[in-house]
């Protein structure tokens, strides 16, 4: 550590409760030298970067003080329970269970043993494929300098998963990551790295669950690398319980002629503060970003999406749809950025919001950062209620009012639900939405 003691002391006020120098030293001794080096790099950034405050533009709508790190223990035990298999598993080649901080991997169709994919904990990956970990962990997608919580994740991650799809490999079913958290008072700090080598095709699905009674924090970070002409589909179904508070930073880097299809389904948690998106970084690359969110009771979901175009001849399309009910609050910020020289760029962004209760709030904030001049770009946002003429039309056909409203709200989400590639997940999202709507309507 190059900083002297006084500088460190000054910075101490900027650490997040529990994530101190002592906690860090305890964590890294002795450890794999490659991982320790990466963690130290991140820890230095973590100390250097200012902690977010409610007056920062990015945190204006979500006070960081709402994340009560002082009430959670910084380093959760690796409570190794056994997560029961579910009937979703058969739709996948590989199932990864994350229970507490313990990771178990099931090679259902034998693709891992056949070398058609590599899925491992970051600890194992650092031993078995140090070159990959060296290149991609805290790589171009998400360097530790991104922000305080990305750096915190880099220094303190307690669940690390590395997925590598070799060149030209096409996975038939896909990889399923199930996070089931049952331990109260912990902070889950997952780091996920996915590398889809050139010409490969794969789908990775995450399912995040915790019980409502479980009080916990989540500081997540995901890095997706989609190499030349590869196609990665990534989907997260977030149904954390109401005791879960999460902060997430994710980024995909998409190379020449490659494509990422990224669907986020944010239905759970008490408070979520998420920032994620794609950099279409090679000519001919594209990103399709779809998301739904729905807040009820006093849930709060704050999302920032990034559509970065750092190469010419690139395409990105984004559709985010949300509904707010009860005292629920949603914040959507959409950033489109074309870097200098990124000509012939098409970028589309749409955010539609339904405000279904008087006490609910939906904020939508567009932001364009354009340094190139040869681009097609559109962004549009709507905030509104249901169309009462549609409600009447359905009622005139005998459909009771609450049922009519429910059908219309599900219909509002339908074009995105339609893009979910697994029936089991589509059904689950449908069920979660119906649960919410039946309670409120």
């Amino acid at each position, binding site marked *: 550590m190059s900083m002297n003691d006084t500088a460190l002391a000054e910075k101490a006020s900027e650490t997040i409760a529990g994530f101190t120098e002592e906690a860090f030293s305890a964590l890294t001794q002795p450890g794999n030298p490659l991982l320790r080096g990466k963690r130290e790099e991140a820890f230095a950034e973590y100390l250097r970067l200012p902690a977010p405050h409610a007056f920062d533009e990015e945190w204006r709508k979500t006070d960081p003080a709402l994340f009560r790190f002082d009430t959670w223990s910084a380093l959760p035990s690796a409570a190794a329970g056994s997560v029961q298999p579910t009937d979703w598993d058969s739709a996948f080649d590989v199932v990864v269970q994350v229970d507490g901080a313990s990771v178990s991997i099931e090679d259902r169709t034998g693709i891992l043993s056949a070398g058609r994919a590599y899925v491992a904990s970051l600890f194992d990956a650092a031993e078995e494929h140090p070159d990959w970990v060296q290149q991609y962990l805290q790589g171009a997608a998400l360097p530790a300098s991104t922000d305080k919580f990305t750096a915190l994740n880099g220094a303190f991650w307690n669940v690390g998963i590395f997925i590598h799809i070799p060149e030209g490999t096409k996975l038939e079913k896909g990889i399923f990551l199930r996070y089931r958290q049952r331990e109260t008072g912990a902070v889950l700090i997952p780091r996920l790295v996915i590398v889809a080598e050139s010409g490969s095709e794969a789908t990775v699905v995450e399912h995040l669950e915790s019980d409502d009674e479980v009080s916990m924090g989540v500081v997540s970070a995901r890095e997706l690398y989609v190499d030349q002409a590869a196609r990665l589909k990534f989907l997260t179904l977030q149904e954390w319980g109401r005791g879960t508070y999460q902060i997430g930073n994710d980024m995909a880097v998409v190379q020449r002629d490659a494509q990422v299809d990224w669907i986020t389904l944010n239905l759970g948690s008490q408070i979520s503060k998420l920032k994620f998106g794609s950099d279409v970084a090679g000519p001919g690359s594209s990103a399709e970003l779809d998301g739904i969110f729905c807040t009820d009771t006093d849930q709060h979901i704050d999302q920032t999406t990034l559509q970065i175009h750092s190469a010419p001849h690139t395409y990105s399309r984004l559709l985010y749809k949300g509904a707010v009910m009860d005292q629920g609050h949603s914040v959507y910020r959409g950033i489109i950025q074309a870097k200098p020289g990124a000509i012939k760029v098409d970028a589309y962004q749409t955010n539609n919001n339904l405000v279904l209760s008087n006490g609910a709030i939906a904020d939508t904030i567009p932001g364009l950062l354009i340094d190139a001049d040869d681009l097609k770009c559109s962004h549009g946002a709507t905030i509104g209620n249901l169309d009462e003429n549609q409600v*009447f*039309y*359905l*009622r005139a*056909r*005998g459909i009771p009012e609450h049922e009519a409203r429910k059908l219309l709200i599900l219909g*509002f989400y*339908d*074009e995105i639900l339609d893009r979910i590639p697994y029936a089991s997940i589509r059904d689950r999202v449908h069920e979660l939405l119906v649960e919410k709507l039946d309670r409120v309507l």
Partner: protein
Amino acid sequence: MSSYFEINELKAEIEGKPILNGLSLTVAKGETHALMGPNGSGKSTLANVIMGHPAYEVTGGEILFEGENILELDPEERARKGLFLAFQYPVAVPGVTVASFLKHAHDAVYGEKKLKAAEFLKQLRADMDFVGVDQTFLNRYLNDGFSGGEKKRMEILQMLTLRPRMAVMDETDSGLDIDALKVVSMGVNKLVGAEFGLLVITHYERILRYIHPDHLHVLIDGKVAFSGGPELVKRLEEEGYDWVRNEFGKEALMA
């Protein structure tokens, strides 16, 4: 004994503006009535008030269906009693497919007596063939991107699906080509019979060649200015509404 469907002295307004000014009209069981009248005279307002559109405020009068004042009922309750409105301008409902919508409507209207999914689909496919709606429409979003004529066929398909006992058709014939008009009329005539009442709102004599009314009413300024036999439609076509205004004058409208 009360009649089948009876409107007495109905008054209604929208946004404080009176549109219906004491309208009375009676349809007996088994009868078909035609309702004509100039643009803006209140025909669609009447149709919407019959179905219970919440934007319209009823300020007087009553609508009796089989003796019960339906003004107290929600739109969905009216539909379940057997009332149906084919809309002049059916709204698009993106996100809700035709199949899902029709199944929900069928289940709601038929309740205990609803058909099983497979049986329902079989019946629906037959009805679609009858009104010339392609099966691919089942998976399309309701009225979303439909042509004018397709929307009208969809209204009649809904009517066949729900099999109402009293229907109001608001300019279902407008915008239909000749073949479509015949098909739609055939669909309607499937329902016409001793147990069915029908009120056809139209601007044109054309549809009345296929759907034969027993009576014809002319609505002017929110009141029935004149009622008569179906033969009068020819005269209306030739002479326009000024004829009614002159013939039946202010007294008729004031009465």
